[in-house]
């Protein structure tokens, strides 16, 4: 009996393994696949060029992309086109990360956010405004007015082609 009590005492002094969720949060791992974010370049232009490769790759058909033409007066992204509509249905999304893999400009990235709850089905569709990350620093938000001939290439030159 003493041996049993000793075990109880030993366990009682141990740190609890559970986390008190809303107050304490467990950090997610680097490879964690959470909510998507649409990235921007440092100059504030959107990385997404509206090629819809992510929509084609998506196993769950969760992504809807509609592209429009960029002009130098109203420039959203480098190159000819940008995504005028970008919607992800979070009820369909299976967080496989295939969109991330297929993106030629590394525009869509699965982040670390996992708290997504919605009251109705309509709010499960995340629009471009929700997904797009805010501009960093003093960069201008899109659409920007740019000089002609500055952003003709839609896919940036890769620094490390092995990556």
């Amino acid at each position, binding site marked *: 009996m003493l041996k049993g009590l000793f075990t109880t005492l030993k366990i009682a002094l141990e740190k609890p*393994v559970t986390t008190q969720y809303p107050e304490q949060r467990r950090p*997610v*791992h680097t*490879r964690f*696949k959470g909510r998507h974010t649409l990235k921007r370049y440092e100059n504030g232009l959107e990385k997404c060029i509206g090629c819809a490769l992510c929509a084609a*790759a998506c*196993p769950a058909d969760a992504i809807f992309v509609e592209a429009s033409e960029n002009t130098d007066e109203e420039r959203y992204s480098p190159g000819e086109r940008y995504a005028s509509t970008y919607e992800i249905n979070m009820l369909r999304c*299976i967080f496989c*990360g295939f969109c991330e893999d297929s993106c030629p400009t590394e525009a869509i990235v*699965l982040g670390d956010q996992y708290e997504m709850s919605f009251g109705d089905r309509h709010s499960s569709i995340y629009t471009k405004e929700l997904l797009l990350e805010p501009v960093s620093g003093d960069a201008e938000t899109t659409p920007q007015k740019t000089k002609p001939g500055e952003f003709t290439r839609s896919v940036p030159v890769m620094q490390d082609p092995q990556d």
Partner: protein
Amino acid sequence: MTEAKKEKFIVPIGPQHPALKEPGNFEFTVDGEIVTDATVRLGFVHRGIEKACETRNYTQDMYLLERVCGICSHVHATAFVLGVEKLAGVQAPPRAEAIRVLAAELERIHSHLLWFGVAAHEAGFDTLFMYTWRDREVVMDILETLSGSRVHYSVNILGGVKIDIDQKLSDLIKKDMDFLEERTEHYMKVVTTDETFLGRTRGIGTLSRDRAKLLGAVGPTARASGVKRDVRVNAPYSGYKEFPVKMVIDQTGDLEARFVVRLKELYESYRLIREILEKIQPGEISTRIKRKIPEGEVISRVEAPRGELFYFIKSNGTEMPDRVKVRTPSLCNWGTITDVAVGHKLADMPMLLAGIDPCFSCNDRMVEIRSDSQPSQMMNWDGLRKYGIEYYK
């Protein structure tokens, strides 16, 4: 008195199962406390995955099939991918195959620990349940670090794997394996010596070797009865050719043997994971595969944590498969339940059910009921749609 004895008393259990968290309907005919007959009715979680596969391309199917089961998701994807690779005549690079085995073994650890917890819970040993699930969290954490998801890992892609391992990750896994091995040793002691636990398991639900063979038992259930049935050993696939496993066999065939076999398999998994991490060769992790798969039929078998998983894939030369047939291990093991249940007390039933590690979502097969009194209830898509609209009006 003799009149009363002739009356059959049937205890229906489920579909809202009191012990397991999944739907399955059982009817136990009892004589007092003793069960004299048992039937099982499945298919409450039919989701039409096989049919849905025919309308998606191979990559999409892989993700869909991964969702057949929430516990053994990696093996489903592996079975499918191996089949498709065979059809396309593509061989995944050795490093990819090793990573596939690594993920499969981690999944086996996670599945066996989960089952162990559930079985302990059925036995009324909730402390053990809490401990095993705490330790399961360790392996879940590894899987999250490895793949980014705790449940559906999506490690596979057609022609290889998506994720790679580095030194840091391999050190972390090795450290956690040491911890888990120490814990498993403790569980082994509990399972084989604890009086209350042995009371629920020793000599209960004994399945003889011949019966197990006859009923087509697979996986740990069969191996606990002395049947040498393990796809990893009998027909090595993927990385198991390079990293062989030892088959764990027990001759007793009772519930205790099933616990012992599964726990011993855990040791084998730890050993194999360490071996893979030591011996893994650097190299490519994926090869290119065409979108259109050549015409043909293929059978693909892998060893899921619960037993042999079987896939049949028929391709018609397009981007989508013509037919995908899934035969899950749980389905094979149901026969053993209805067989061994006879002669046991009703109170032993939850333990017997838990003993085969049942997975109800694996049992979503279409069953056509042929009855003389009722006409066939086969429906085509339009009819089903119309029926659905009418029903929910």
